[in-house]
């Protein structure tokens, strides 16, 4: 085989890999755009959680500063669980997963496709929650640093969450099991995201109070995305 053929072979493989990912993402987004059931559930749930926190925590102006980061991330974590569960349950119930597995695509492409669509859903929900929270509590949440932290944290959450949701949906206990599996493992993300978000909101010093946490988020995202797409095969094989 000449080197030229090998190069084109790889190009073709890469092309079909990214095409497969794009196909999965597009399928999920299109389906969700038509029905909007997942999205509305996550959104309503998040707004209710914020409302409950208002009554549960007595968020006067002083405490708001220190507590906002935590409240936001608890909301995202719970809404995220909802989204992950529904996203994988739909695949299983409609038999889409089996169809996807029969297709001649790399399993990792399916993983990335699902993870990206889950991430998109989570980001859209967060994009709506942030202005609502800002409005209700008169805190400006639209700082670029904070948005970066939310992105990194969501990536970490969704990368592990997609893998674990694929497992949970195949057990007898299904939905109930995902938070139990996910939360202990995703604690570094939650801690780092809350600390970094809090740092931005209280105007803390960047290098000492925010940068270490962003580093943790980056490392976590890299490590767990790698583990997830390498082990996804074992989780969905029949």
């Amino acid at each position: 085989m000449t080197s030229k053929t090998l190069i084109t072979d790889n190009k073709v493989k890469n092309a079909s890999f990214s095409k497969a990912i794009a196909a999965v993402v597009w399928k999920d987004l299109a389906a969700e755009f038509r029905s909007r059931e997942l999205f509305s559930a996550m959104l309503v749930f998040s707004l209710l959680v914020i409302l409950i926190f208002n009554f549960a925590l007595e968020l006067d102006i002083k405490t708001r500063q220190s507590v906002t980061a935590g409240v936001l991330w608890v909301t995202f974590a719970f809404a995220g669980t909802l989204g992950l569960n529904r996203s994988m349950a739909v695949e299983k119930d409609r038999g889409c997963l089996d169809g996807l597995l029969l297709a001649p695509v790399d399993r990792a492409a399916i993983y990335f496709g699902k993870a990206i669509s889950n991430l998109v859903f989570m980001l859209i929900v967060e994009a709506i929650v942030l202005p609502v929270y800002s409005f209700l509590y008169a805190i400006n949440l639209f700082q670029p640093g904070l948005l970066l932290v939310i992105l990194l944290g969501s990536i970490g959450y969704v990368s592990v969450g997609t893998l674990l949701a694929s497992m949970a949906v195949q057990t007898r206990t299904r939905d109930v099991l995902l938070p139990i599996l996910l939360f202990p493992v995703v604690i570094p993300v939650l801690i780092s995201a809350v600390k970094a978000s809090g740092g931005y909101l209280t105007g803390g010093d960047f290098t000492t109070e925010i940068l270490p946490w962003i580093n943790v988020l980056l490392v976590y995202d890299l490590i767990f995305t790698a583990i997830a797409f390498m082990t996804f095969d074992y989780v969905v094989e029949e």
Partner: protein
Amino acid sequence: MQTKPTALKILDIVSVLLLAAATYLALFYAPEEAVMGQVQRVFYFHIGTAWVGLLGFLLAAIMGIVYLVTHDQKWDIVEMAAVEISLVFFLITIMLGSIWARPVWNTWWTWDPRLTTAAITELIYIAYFMLRAGIEDPDRRARFGAVYTLIGGVSAPITFMVIRLVRSIHPVIIAGNDPSSQGTFAMTGGMQVAFFFGLFAFTVIFIDLFWNRIRLGNLAAKVEQLKLNITN
């Protein structure tokens, strides 16, 4: 398979003797600590059980990878044995840590990195068993268990480092003492003997329990296989 190998029977007896010796050293031979009093003796077993828990934790993560690579069920049995032993011993570690904290820092719980990570690891183990309990197919159960021990095995050390980072950036004062110092005391000769012998004894105890648990796991796998054969 049914009768216990002689080596294991001997190991059982040796483990019991070593445990007795370690108890004697910790309770009587080691001198009393000047600041905390007798409760400090709990430390010898606290570290010993933490060590066993840690061994189990590491083995479980490694066995997860080995199972995924080999697809040989025996590694799944080994992995489950490691997780179970680690679960029990981390539980004891946490309880002893709490008992030690009460008279020394006047609190039942300190959010220090080691105890907190042990508690989170316990939650991971419980999640592991709940995951396995929800799956009928032995092959799928083994695969999922292996993936989860891998994820938990990587996540727990990261959690430990993150919590320690929290402490170093924002040192928290609890009951007038900084818990990250873990009530340090200078170990005199007698204490060192008790400490190191304790570690040795607990390592042997771990091996003994591990071997026994693997045999139990083999038996369980055999029974399950027979049940599946008959119902088919």
